[in-house]
């Protein structure tokens, strides 16, 4: 938490009410059935509506119902790049919530706890404790219902008051969420909300914690999570068909596509397994559509044989992998970036594939558009490596302009003349989908056998070498059309931080802090992982060291997966590696400590 005059709750009494907070990190800790995700979502959407920035972080137990769960919201009037290292406020619903999360509260932070459930150590002078009978006050507010409901809305009301949030806008968001249900649902929600809002907490806090108004004016803003934004990106990219199989944390994309695509005249099919899902999607691709399939790590492993087929037959396909902790069932609801090698190399044969990674929720939209563009142009499978953190966290950002980005779905079955050749050695792949009349009278067979320019199977040694090169050179051509990456921060200096995927925000925030402390550091976030954009070596050369941060294991030789690839590609001993495999993202201080460690090595 930072304020314009650098005050904190411990010296709140000395602060005038006009000192608004620049940002605040609020951690809600309870059980998964308490609805803390719901109010976290409300807060995030409110931030989007009030020109504030927001980033959320949540943990979900991998059990069906119940189990400890947290939702962390980082709201700020300026740029918010990470979910926040430490919380400024902790709301503890239960004893275990208090015990497990009190140490995530920064010194001087405020712990709000339910006196009906929690007995904190009040001698712990690091924190300000505020006890509120949350359970009994909520039950009273709802008219004596003993049901364990509404505590989340009580807390939302309380936080609205403490942080001086826009009550009217929030009420409108709640109304839209609950308004479709039975009227008693909305009524009870607002009763609990109002009870929290009017609870006299201000006296206990003895200060004003209002967050300053947002600085982002004049743009339409939306708030949502990464999986929803990937879905929207696919829809905008002209994807109208797809198939999948349920697996956490990919499932919500297939659920959305199943409901959304029919509105566009398209269809998403649930396959009997991962192999069927990728095969159905390839059938759609062969039929002339831009199709999608997706999964998480273990499911991607099952799709691998078909992906090599797609490379050989040169069929366009978007493949999403929302990564989670592995191997095997691993940590199914935690974040990890350990599928990079699988995405690029997993599967048999020389099968070069395009691999992209979105860097935040907003970027999920644009990465899907980019995947669609590449799949169409080069007739290749394109893998999008998202991860559990991006998939589930909510961010607020500028609404994409659909007038600019909407791509029309097309099916070209116009007649092909006698010169039709799907795999020309000197040109781009062009298929003739079923339904296309072939004026020469000779119809094409798409095959996984090595083939000539017309698609005829052949085992000619010279041709196999030429066609293998042809498939590889499509990616070489793609690399040439990618913009060289600009370095964020200092263009030259001590350390260049390199990341991919969801480490984007924390790396930037770490760079900002290090530069504020006088260090010469820059950052590059790689969105195109295979092929890499050209020119990276020029940026590397301007720094004393290159620190690659990624959420996977350092491996046998001390380098994470991207670091290994970059070292192989550039043979540059400056490239070093900092990895983490706790199922959690990097904290800002861990990144700064990582840079220090490399400097002192």
């Amino acid at each position: 938490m930072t304020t314009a005059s650098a005050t904190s709750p411990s010296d709140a009494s000395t602060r005038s009410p006009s000192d608004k907070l620049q940002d605040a990190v609020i951690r809600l800790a309870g059980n998964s059935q308490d609805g803390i995700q719901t109010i976290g979502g409300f807060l995030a959407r409110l931030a989007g509506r009030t020109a504030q920035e927001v980033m959320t972080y949540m943990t979900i137990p991998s059990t069906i119902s119940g189990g400890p769960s947290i939702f962390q919201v980082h709201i700020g009037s300026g740029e918010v790049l990470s979910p926040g290292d430490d919380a400024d406020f902790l709301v503890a619903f239960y004893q275990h919530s208090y015990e497990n999360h009190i140490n995530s509260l920064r010194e001087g932070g405020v712990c709000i706890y339910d006196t009906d459930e929690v007995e904190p150590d009040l001698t712990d002078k690091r924190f300000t404790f505020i006890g509120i009978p949350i359970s009994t006050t909520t039950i009273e507010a709802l008219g004596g219902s003993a049901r364990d409901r509404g505590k989340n809305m009580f807390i939302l009301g309380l936080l609205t008051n403490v942080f001086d949030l826009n009550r009217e806008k929030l009420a409108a968001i709640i109304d839209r969420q609950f308004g479709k249900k039975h009227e008693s649902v909305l009524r009870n929600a607002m009763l609990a909300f109002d009870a929290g809002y009017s609870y006299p907490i201000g006296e206990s806090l003895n200060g004003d914690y209002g967050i300053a108004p947002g600085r982002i004016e004049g743009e339409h803003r939306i708030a949502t999570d990464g999986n929803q934004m990937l879905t929207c990106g696919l829809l905008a990219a002209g994807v109208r068909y797809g198939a999948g199989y349920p697996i956490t944390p990919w499932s919500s994309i297939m659920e959305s596509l199943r409901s959304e695509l029919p509105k566009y005249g398209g269809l998403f099919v649930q396959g009997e397994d991962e192999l069927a899902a990728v095969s159905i999607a390839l059938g759609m691709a062969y039929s002339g559509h831009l199709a999608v399939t997706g999964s998480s790590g273990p499911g991607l492993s099952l799709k691998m044989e078909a992906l090599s087929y797609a490379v050989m037959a040169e069929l366009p396909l978007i493949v999403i992998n929302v990564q989670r902790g592995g191997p095997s069932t691993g940590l199914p609801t935690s974040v990890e970036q350990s599928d990079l090698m699988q995405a690029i190399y997993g599967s048999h044969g020389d099968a070069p594939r395009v691999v992209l990674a979105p860097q935040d929720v907003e970027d999920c939209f644009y990465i899907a558009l980019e995947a669609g563009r590449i799949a169409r142009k080069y007739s290749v499978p394109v893998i999008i490596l998202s991860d559990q953190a991006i998939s589930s966290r909510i961010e607020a950002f500028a609404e994409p302009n659909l007038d600019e980005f909407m791509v029309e779905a097309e099916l070209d079955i116009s007649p092909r003349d006698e010169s039709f050749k799907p795999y020309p050695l000197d040109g781009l792949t062009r298929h003739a989908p079923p339904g296309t009349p072939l004026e020469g009278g000779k119809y094409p067979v798409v095959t996984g056998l090595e083939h000539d320019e017309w698609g005829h199977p052949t085992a000619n040694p010279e041709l196999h070498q030429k066609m293998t090169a042809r498939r590889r050179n499509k990616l070489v051509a793609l690399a040439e059309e990618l913009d060289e990456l600009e370095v964020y921060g200092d263009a030259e200096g001590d350390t260049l931080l390199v990341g991919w995927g969801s480490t984007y925000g924390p790396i930037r925030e770490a760079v900002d802090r290090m530069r504020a402390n006088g260090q010469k550091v820059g950052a590059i976030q790689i969105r195109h992982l295979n092929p890499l954009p050209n020119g990276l070596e020029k940026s590397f050369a301007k720094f004393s060291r290159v620190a690659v941060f990624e959420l996977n294991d350092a491996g046998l030789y001390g380098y994470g997966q991207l670091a290994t690839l970059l070292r192989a590609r550039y043979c540059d001993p400056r490239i070093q590696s900092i990895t983490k495999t706790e199922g959690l993202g990097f904290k800002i201080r861990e990144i700064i400590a990582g840079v220090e460690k490399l400097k002192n090595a």
Partner: protein
Amino acid sequence: MSTAAPAPPEKLTKKMLTADHPTWCPGCGDFAVLAAFYKVLEKLQIPHEKIVTIAGIGCSSRFPYFVNSHGLHFIHGRALPLATGISLSRPDVHVFAFGGDGDGFSIGGNHLDHCARKNVNLTYVIMDNSVYGLTKMQTSPTSPIGYKSKTDPTGAIDQPVNPMRKLVASGASFVGRTHATQVKHMMEMFERAIKHQGFSVVEVLSECVIFYPGAFDSGNPRKGGEFEIIQERSWDETAEDEARHDVTDFSAAMKLTEESYPGKFGTYYEVDRPSKNVLEQKWIDDSRAKVGSASDKDILQARFNQMK
């Protein structure tokens, strides 16, 4: 646009459908299956560009190379899900999937069950030779107990799949059985299967003359066997009709599958059940009706508006 009247569509002939000469061994049963397929397509006059032939891996799965039509030669066992993707996303084309007993009953066995229960609109022909031929004589899921192969040198020990029982039980809405030596009957089965709305499957006993010669002689009258065709009910209210097979009777179909080898040939089961294609189209139509005249961009914009 040309001002001349469009030329009438060319009549589809066997010659137009003929592609590469099959790489099958001389005497292979699959030649007859291919010839019967050409003849039925010629009879039904399906527009040339609307014919799509799909296969997985195996000797019989080389089929698409030998038919001059749109085609795709896929990976082992996954021909049916691939064909599903085509059928559901392109209702304007006719999808034919071909394969053998290994592709259909072993590596792809799960897909067969699900494609059948979903009643995806396509026709699937299984050329069963009871042996892995392309990989040169390993035990297949339909090899009988005692069959000596390179993977069972002292004779197969695992109980084989009963193909017809699996097909009827799977929920396929048309299940037929024929023999590659009985071309006229094979054509009848193919024609009925193609005209059927939904998932139609025909098992063809097709001999591998190299690795399992004589496998199906018991169903071939010219080799001393018996080719007994199922007598279907004609509903003529005669006493003898009572004894005939009601193709819509699931229990009767299952009972037929229990007959000892070689069993009967013909239509085991045929029912009218809405295909997945029809049901999905209804879901699409209902969804389209709800959005009215909104463009794709409008629909996505409305989704963004929900996120504000």
